[in-house]
C-alpha cells in the first residue's frame, strides 16, 4: 500500500528527559522516525523537552516544542498545530502513555488526529495486563500465572492453586526492592508482608516464578497487510530473574536449536498479528532449559531499547521502517537501505556475534543497592561485534571504561573465595566478573551453574578464556610465537592486557604484533551474511580473515564518540558528535565515526560516511586510524572519554584538531590552571593540588573550611566531597583510599554560572550565559539553571566574557570550551574550564539558534574563523529558558537524593516561557501532575520570613518538621524539603522519592518552585515561533550582536 496522502502533518512524541530504562535509544528511534517522515514529505511537529536529543534539532523536525510531556500540554499543542496524524510508538513508554491518555480523553477525536501505526486497541491489548492475559489464553500462548494482592491471605490462596516457587514484586518501590522468590508458605507470607509495607500503594504482584529459564527476545515487525518478519532474536546470558536491561545479551541466540528458535519465532508472529501491531514490537520469552515449555514474559508494542540494539546488531533500521509502515507502506514495498537491493521484508542473517553489556552507575555510587532483579538499574550499554563470542565479549568489556584489565577485576581479585561466592549469590552487577574470578580459582562449572543458572555454553567459553589467560601469563613477549599472539588477539585480549601480563609497554606489544603482520581485518555489517552485495559503510574489526574495508584518499576526519551513557556523560555528547559529523560533511570532508554505544544516533550507519563499531580504547582507535589513513582526529566532542585519549593518541603522532594535550593539561592540571589564571589576573578561588595526607591537612589549614576535595580528570564530580570542618576532614581521611593527587578548593557559598563558547584562537562566539538556581556546592548537572541570567549584572556578565576571551587568546584556543564561574556579588571567579563540548552546548544551540558545534567544527577544520566576538544580547531574548535535572533515584535504592558536588541526575529537560516563574512552573509540571496534596513539608530548616512569604504566595499548606516531630503524610504532600544530613533525613527523602513527591535538599529549588506556583495558565510555543518573534522584532541574528 502506498503512503497515506490523507495526512500532511504529523505530531511525533519523543520520550523526554533521560531516566533509567528510557535513554538514548529513543533519541535514535525518534531521529530515524522524523527523518523518515520528512523524507516522505510530511510536516513533522515534535514534542520533546529533552534538549540533548538529536531529534529535537532543526534538521529533523519542522516545529519543535520543548514543552512538558503531559497530556494537557500535548492537548494545547494539538489545538495549536492541528496535526493530521500522531506517531507515538517511537517515544518509549512516555510516548505510548501520552497517546493512550489523549485517546481516552477524546482529544484525538475532538481535533481529528489520526493515530498512526498501531491502534489504541492494539496498544491496550499489549499494555493492559488483564487484556493481554486474556488474549494469550485465547491464543493458547502460556503466560506465567499471577495476581495482584493487597493482603497476605490472597497470596497464600494463590500459592495453594499454583504451587511454588513464587515471585513477589511489590509495586512502587525503589529499585524493585522488597521482592523476592518464595519457596514455601512461610517465606511467601513474610515476603508479601514486607512487600506490602515497602510498596507506596500497598500492592504486590505475585507470580509463578520462572527464574532460571532462558530469557529470549524477538524483535518483530508487522505491516498493515500482516506481513511479519523478525529482525533478530537475542538471548540473555543472565537467565530470567535479571531485567533484560541489566543482562548481558547476545545476538543471535546461541543455545537454541532451530526447532526452538522457530517455535518462538512462530509464537512471536502469531502474537504480533493478533495484537494488530503496525511497526516494531519486542516480545520476551522464558524458555525452559530442559524442555520445549515456554512462557511469554512481556510484549512491548513499540520500539524499545532492544529494538535499538537489534538495529545496530543487524544493520536493519527498525525505527525508520516502523515510521514508514505507520504512514501506510508495506514491508515488501520498501528497499532495505543497507543492501540497497533487498527489500525491507528480508529477514537479516548475521555472520558475527553481538554482545551487549550494561553500564551501571555503581562505580559512582558504591553505596547504592547493587542487587539486580526486576528493576533496571543500568544507565547505558555497550555493544561488541566480532566473529567469535570471546572477542565480542571482550570488546564490550573494553568499551565499559571500568578499571579492569580485560577479564580481571582488581576489586574482586582481592576478595576471598567465600566472599566471592556470597557476592555471586547476591546477584549484583559484579556477577559476571565474579564468575570469572571463581573460574580462575578452579570452581567447577557445575558449582557456578547451580548458583547462577547461566548456561553451560557460556560458562564453558568463559572457562576457556580463563585458561587462555593462564596460558598468556606463562609466556613473555619474546617467547610468544606469532601463532600464539595471533590466537590471543583473535580471542580478544587487548594489547594493553598482554602488556600488563608480560610487564612490557603497550607500545612494545603493538609493535611486535604489527611486525608479525597481525592486523585487524574490517568486516562489513550487511544484514545478509554476504549473500548479496551491500552498500554498507558499517564495519567491525576482527583479528582474522580478509579485510573488506576500502579506504579512500579523500581528506578525512575521525570523530571519537562518547561511549556508553552514564551519569555525568550522557546523550548530549552524542548530540555534539553527530553535529560535528554533519558540519564535516557539510564541508565535504569524509567523516569516520568510532563509537560503541548501540543506543545512539552516532552509531546509526547513515550518520557518518563510515562507522566503526569498536571499543574506545587506544588499540582499536589507532587500528582504525591506520587502516583508514586518518591524519586528523577530533576529541572535543565525545566528552571526557575522547578527551582522556588525547595525549596517548599524540604519542603515536596523531594530529588532534583543536584541543591538544598541552592545552588540556593547561586547563585540567590544577597547578598549571591556577598559574594561567594568575598570569591573566583572573580571580580564582583558593585551591591547590595535594599529594599526601600531610599536604592535604596543610592546604586545608591555609585555605580555610569549608573546602571541596576531588580527584583530577573525572566526569560528573565523581568522588567529590564537601568538607566543612577539621572533624569532617578527619572522617574523610579515616575512610582511606584517598586517590592522591587530589584537588582541594576553597568552598565559596555563592551563585554559580556558566557559559559555552566556540573560539577561533582569537575571537569567541558565546551565545548565552546560564545562571544556576542553586548555589555552589551542587554539581552543575544537578542544578536548575536559567538563561538568560536573572540576577547577574551587566558588569558581571561582561567580566565573565572578558575572562573567557583572555583565556582563549592566551592559549590560542580553538573549538568548544565550557567555563564555570562563581559569582559573589560583583565578584567573578573562574571555577573550572572544560576544553570540550559540554552538557549545556545542545541547550544553548537550540534555544539561541547558534549552532555552536557547527561553528567550532568548521573552525577546527581551518575553513572558518570569526570576524569578531559574537556575544549575547541576552536581555533581548523574548523568552526565559529553564534547564531542570531529572533523577532516576526511584531505580537506585540506597542513593540519597540530596544533591551535592557528585552528579546524580540521569537526564535533563528545558522549559521556555515569557517569564522566569512560568518557565519554572513548566519544569515542575510533569512532577506535579497527578499530585493532589496541598502540603509542602519543610524539615530541618528555620522558618524564615522569606519562606513564609513564598509559601503564602503559593497558597500551600506548610508543615514544618523538627527532629522531635517527623510525622508527615505523603499523600497530602506535593513537595518535600529536607537539607538534613542524618540517616533519618535520608530516609525521609527516600520516602519522598518513593511516593513520587518533588523532593529537594536545596532551599533555592524550593523557593523557585513556590515562586512558580503563582504563574497562571501557561501557553505552548514552538522554538521556531519563539525565534520568529525575535526575528520580527528586527534582530538580524539570534542571540548575537
Amino acid at each position: 500500500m502506498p503512503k497515506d496522502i490523507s495526512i500532511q502533518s504529523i505530531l511525533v512524541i519523543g520520550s523526554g528527559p533521560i531516566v533509567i530504562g528510557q535513554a538514548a535509544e529513543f533519541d535514535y528511534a525518534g531521529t530515524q522516525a522524523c527523518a523518515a517522515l520528512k523524507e516522505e514529505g510530511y510536516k513533522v511537529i515534535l514534542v520533546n523537552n529533552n534538549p540533548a536529543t538529536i531529534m529535537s534539532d532543526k534538521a529533523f523536525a519542522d516545529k519543535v516544542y520543548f514543552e512538558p510531556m503531559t497530556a494537557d500540554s500535548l492537548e494545547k499543542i494539538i489545538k495549536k498545530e492541528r496535526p493530521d496524524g500522531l506517531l507515538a510508538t517511537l517515544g518509549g513508554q512516555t510516548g505510548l502513555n501520552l497517546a493512550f491518555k489523549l485517546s481516552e480523553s477524546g482529544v484525538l477525536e475532538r481535533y481529528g488526529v489520526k493515530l498512526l501505526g498501531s491502534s489504541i486497541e492494539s496498544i491496550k491489548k499489549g499494555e493492559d495486563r488483564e487484556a493481554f492475559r486474556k488474549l494469550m489464553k485465547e491464543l493458547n500462548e502460556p503466560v506465567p500465572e499471577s495476581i495482584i494482592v493487597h493482603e497476605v491471605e490472597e497470596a497464600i490462596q494463590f500459592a495453594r492453586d499454583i504451587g511454588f516457587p513464587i515471585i513477589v514484586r511489590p509495586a512502587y518501590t525503589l529499585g524493585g526492592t522488597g521482592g523476592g522468590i518464595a519457596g514455601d508458605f512461610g517465606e511467601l507470607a513474610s515476603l508479601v508482608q514486607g512487600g506490602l509495607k515497602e510498596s507506596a500503594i500497598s500492592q504486590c504482584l505475585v507470580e509463578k516464578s520462572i527464574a532460571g529459564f532462558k530469557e529470549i527476545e524477538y524483535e518483530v515487525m508487522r505491516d498493515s497487510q500482516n506481513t511479519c518478519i523478525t529482525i533478530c532474536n537475542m538471548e540473555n546470558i543472565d537467565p530470567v530473574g535479571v531485567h533484560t536491561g541489566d543482562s548481558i545479551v547476545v545476538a543471535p541466540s546461541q543455545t537454541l536449536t532451530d526447532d526452538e528458535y522457530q517455535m518462538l519465532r512462530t509464537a512471536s508472529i502469531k502474537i504480533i498479528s493478533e495484537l494488530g501491531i503496525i511497526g516494531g514490537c519486542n516480545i520476551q520469552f522464558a524458555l525452559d532449559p530442559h524442555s520445549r515449555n515456554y512462557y511469554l514474559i512481556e510484549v512491548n508494542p513499540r520500539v524499545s531499547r532492544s529494538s535499538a540494539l537489534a538495529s545496530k546488531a543487524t544493520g536493519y533500521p527498525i525505527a525508520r521502517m516502523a515510521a514508514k509502515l505507520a504512514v501506510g507502506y508495506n514491508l515488501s514495498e520498501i528497499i532495505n537501505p543497507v543492501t540497497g537491493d533487498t527489500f525491507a521484508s528480508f529477514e537479516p542473517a548475521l555472520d558475527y556475534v553481538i554482545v551487549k553489556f550494561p553500564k551501571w552507575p555503581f562505580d559512582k555510587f558504591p553505596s547504592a543497592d547493587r542487587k539486580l532483579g526486576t528493576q533496571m538499574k543500568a544507565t547505558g550499554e555497550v555493544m561488541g561485534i566480532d566473529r567469535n563470542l570471546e572477542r565480542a565479549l571482550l570488546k564490550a568489556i573494553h568499551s565499559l571504561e571500568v578499571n579492569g584489565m580485560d577479564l580481571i577485576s582488581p576489586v574482586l581479585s582481592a576478595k576471598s573465595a567465600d566472599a566471592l561466592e556470597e557476592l555471586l549469590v547476591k546477584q549484583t552487577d559484579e556477577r559476571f566478573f565474579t564468575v570469572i574470578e571463581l573460574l580462575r580459582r578452579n570452581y567447577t562449572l557445575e558449582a557456578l551453574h547451580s548458583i547462577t543458572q547461566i548456561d553451560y555454553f557460556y560458562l564453558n567459553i568463559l572457562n576457556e578464556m580463563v585458561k587462555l589467560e593462564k596460558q598468556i601469563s606463562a609466556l613473555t613477549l619474546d617467547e610468544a610465537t606469532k601463532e600464539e599472539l595471533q590466537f590471543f588477539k583473535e580471542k580478544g585480549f587487548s594489547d594493553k592486557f598482554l602488556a600488563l601480563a608480560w610487564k612490557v609497554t603497550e607500545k612494545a606489544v603493538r609493535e611486535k604484533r604489527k611486525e608479525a603482520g597481525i592486523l585487524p581485518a574490517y568486516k562489513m555489517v550487511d544484514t545478509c551474511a554476504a549473500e548479496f552485495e551491500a552498500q554498507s559503510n558499517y564495519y567491525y574489526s576482527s583479528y582474522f580473515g580478509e579485510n573488506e574495508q576500502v579506504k579512500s584518499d579523500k581528506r578525512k576526519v575521525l570523530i571519537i564518540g562518547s561511549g556508553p551513557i552514564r551519569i555525568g556523560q550522557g546523550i548530549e555528547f552524542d548530540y555534539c558528535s553527530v553535529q560535528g559529523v554533519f558540519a564535516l560533511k557539510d564541508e565535504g570532508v569524509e567523516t569516520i565515526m568510532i563509537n560503541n554505544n548501540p543506543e545512539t544516533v552516532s552509531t546509526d550507519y547513515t550518520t557518518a560516511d563510515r562507522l566503526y563499531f569498536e571499543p574506545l580504547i587506544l588499540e582499536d582507535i589507532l587500528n582504525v586510524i591506520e587502516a583508514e589513513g586518518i591524519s586528523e582526529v577530533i576529541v572535543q566532542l565525545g566528552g571526557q572519554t575522547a578527551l582522556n585519549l588525547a595525549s596517548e593518541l599524540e604519542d603515536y603522532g596523531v594530529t588532534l584538531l583543536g584541543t591538544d594535550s598541552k592545552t588540556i593539561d593547561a586547563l585540567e592540571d590544577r597547578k598549571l590552571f591556577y598559574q594561567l589564571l594568575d598570569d591573566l589576573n583572573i580571580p580564582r578561588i583558593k585551591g591547590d593540588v595535594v599529594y599526601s595526607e600531610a599536604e592535604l591537612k596543610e592546604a586545608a589549614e591555609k585555605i580555610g573550611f569549608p573546602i571541596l576535595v576531588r580527584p583530577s580528570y573525572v566526569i560528573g564530580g565523581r568522588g567529590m566531597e564537601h568538607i566543612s570542618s577539621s572533624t569532617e576532614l578527619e572522617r574523610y581521611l579515616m575512610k582511606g583510599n584517598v586517590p592522591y593527587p587530589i584537588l582541594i578548593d576553597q568552598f565559596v557559598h555563592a551563585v554559580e554560572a556558566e557559559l559555552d563558547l566556540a573560539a577561533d584562537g582569537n575571537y569567541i562566539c558565546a551565545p548565552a550565559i546560564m545562571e544556576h538556581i542553586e548555589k555552589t556546592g551542587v554539581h552543575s548537572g544537578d542544578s536548575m539553571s536559567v538563561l538568560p541570567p536573572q540576577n547577574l549584572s551587566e558588569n558581571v556578565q561582561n567580566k565573565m566574557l572578558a575572562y573567557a576571551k583572555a583565556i582563549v587568546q592566551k592559549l590560542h584556543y580553538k573549538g568548544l570550551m565550557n567555563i564555570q564561574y562563581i559569582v559573589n556579588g560583583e565578584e567573578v571567579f573562574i571555577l573550572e574550564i572544560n576544553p570540550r563540548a559540554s552538557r549545556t552546548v545542545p541547550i544553548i544551540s537550540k534555544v539561541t539558534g547558534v549552532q555552536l558545534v557547527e561553528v567550532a567544527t568548521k573552525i577546527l577544520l581551518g575553513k572558518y574563523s570569526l570576524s569578531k566576538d559574537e556575544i549575547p544580547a541576552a536581555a533581548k531574548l523574548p523568552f526565559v529558558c529553564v534547564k531542570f535535572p531529572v533523577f532516576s533515584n526511584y531505580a537506585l535504592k540506597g542513593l540519597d537524593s540530596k544533591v551535592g558536588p557528585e552528579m546524580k541526575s540521569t537526564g535533563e529537560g528545558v522549559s521556555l516561557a515569557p517569564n522566569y516563574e512560568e518557565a519554572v512552573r513548566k519544569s515542575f509540571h510533569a512532577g506535579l501532575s497527578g499530585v493532589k496534596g496541598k502540603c509542602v513539608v519543610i524539615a530541618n530548616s528555620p522558618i524564615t520570613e522569606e519562606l513564609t512569604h513564598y509559601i503564602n504566595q503559593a497558597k500551600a499548606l506548610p508543615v514544618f518538621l523538627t527532629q522531635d516531630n517527623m510525622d508527615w503524610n505523603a499523600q497530602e504532600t506535593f513537595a518535600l524539603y529536607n537539607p538534613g544530613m542524618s540517616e533519618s533525613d535520608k530516609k525521609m527523602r527516600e520516602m519522598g522519592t518513593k511516593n513520587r513527591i518533588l523532593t529537594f535538599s536545596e532551599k533555592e529549588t524550593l523557593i523557585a518552585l513556590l515562586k512558580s506556583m503563582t504563574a497562571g495558565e501557561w501557553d505552548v510555543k514552538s522554538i521556531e515561533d519563539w525565534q520568529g518573534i525575535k526575528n520580527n522584532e528586527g534582530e538580524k541574528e539570534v542571540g548575537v550582536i
Partner: protein
Amino acid sequence: MEGYLHLNSGHSYKGQWLTDKPEKDIEGEIVFFTGMTGYQEVLTDPSYKDQIIVFTYPLIGNYGINENDFESKKPHVAGVIVYEGSRNPSHYKSASSLQEYLQKWNIPLLGHMDTRSIVKKIRSEGSMPAKMSSSETSANGLLLPKDEKVCKVSSQTMECFGEGGIHIVVMDFGAKKSIVDSLLKRACKVTSVPFNTSFEQIKKLNPDGVVLSNGPGDPKELKSILPELKKVLELYPALGICLGHQLAALAFGGNTKKLSFGHRGANHPIADMKKGTVFMSSQNHSYVVDEESILDTGFKTRYVNLHDQSIEGLMHKVLPIHTVQFHPEAHPGPADGDYIFDEFMNMIQEENRRVFAYA
C-alpha cells in the same frame, strides 16, 4: 592439523581439521547456508547430497546433535566448512557434539575458515566445484561426476507411517523427514515410495493425494521418469516441494535453469499472489523453474521470491496441483509456509467431494 579448501576458481583457504584428517581429498559442489540455526537439519537434508556446505554463521555446533532433529537417517553433505565448531555443546537434548557426529560418518569438518570470504567468492563466481584437502596445492579444472544423485538418497523400498484417514503417497526423491511429519500432524497416513515408482504402482496404493518431495541435483537428470510422473499428477491432487515442484513443471513441458549460487537459508521473503501476503521461507535450491517456460504448461505462478523475482511456486489452472520451490515443512527455517499443507488437505477434500459428487 592444517587443512585446505581449494575452489575451482583457484582460490585457496587454510584452516584446521576439526575432525580427523580425511584419508583422501573430498570433492563436491560448494554452496552456503545463511541460516543462524539448523545445522543438524541441513547436514541430514538429502538435498545437500555430495555438496560441500559452508555455514555463514560463525559458531556452529553450540547445541550439539540430538535425536529429534534429523531430516534423514544420515548426513548427506560431502564436507563441512565453518569458522568455529563448538566442542562443548550445551543443550538438554544434545547426544553428541558436531565433531563426534561428523567423525562417526566420516565427513570432514574444516574449521577456522574465513567463511565470509568464501561466500563472497561463491556470490561473485557462482557455486562451483571445490576440494577439501590436506595438501596446499590449489585446484582448478575440477570436474564433478555428472551422476544422478536422487537414486543415492531415495529409499529403495516403500515405507508406511501413521494411520490417519487421508492417504498420501510421498514420492521420495530424497525427502526430508519433516515433510512426512507435516502430513502426520494433519492425521494422514503416509506411504513413502521410491522415486521411480510407476504410475500403476502408485495407483494400486489408492492414495488421496501425492507429494513430490524435495531432493538433490538437477531435475533434468530425472527426465526418464517425467511421463510416469505426469500421469500421477493428472490423476491425484498433488503437492510438489522443491525438486518435486521443478519436476512437476518439467512434466508439463516447462523448463528449469540453474541459479548462479542458489538460495539457501531461512530468510527469503516470498509473495503469495493469491493471498496477497508476504512471508519468510526456508530455502535450499540451485535450480528454478524458468518463468517464460510455463506459459503453455497449464501452470500459473502463485509464489514469487521478492528478492530476485524468481518463481517460488505454481498452481495448475485446472488440475489440483500446487507446487512450491521453498520448504513449507521448514526444519530448518521459518514455518510461515506451513499453511500450504493445510491447503493441500483442503484441495484433497474438495477433490474427494467432487469425485463423490460425480460418482
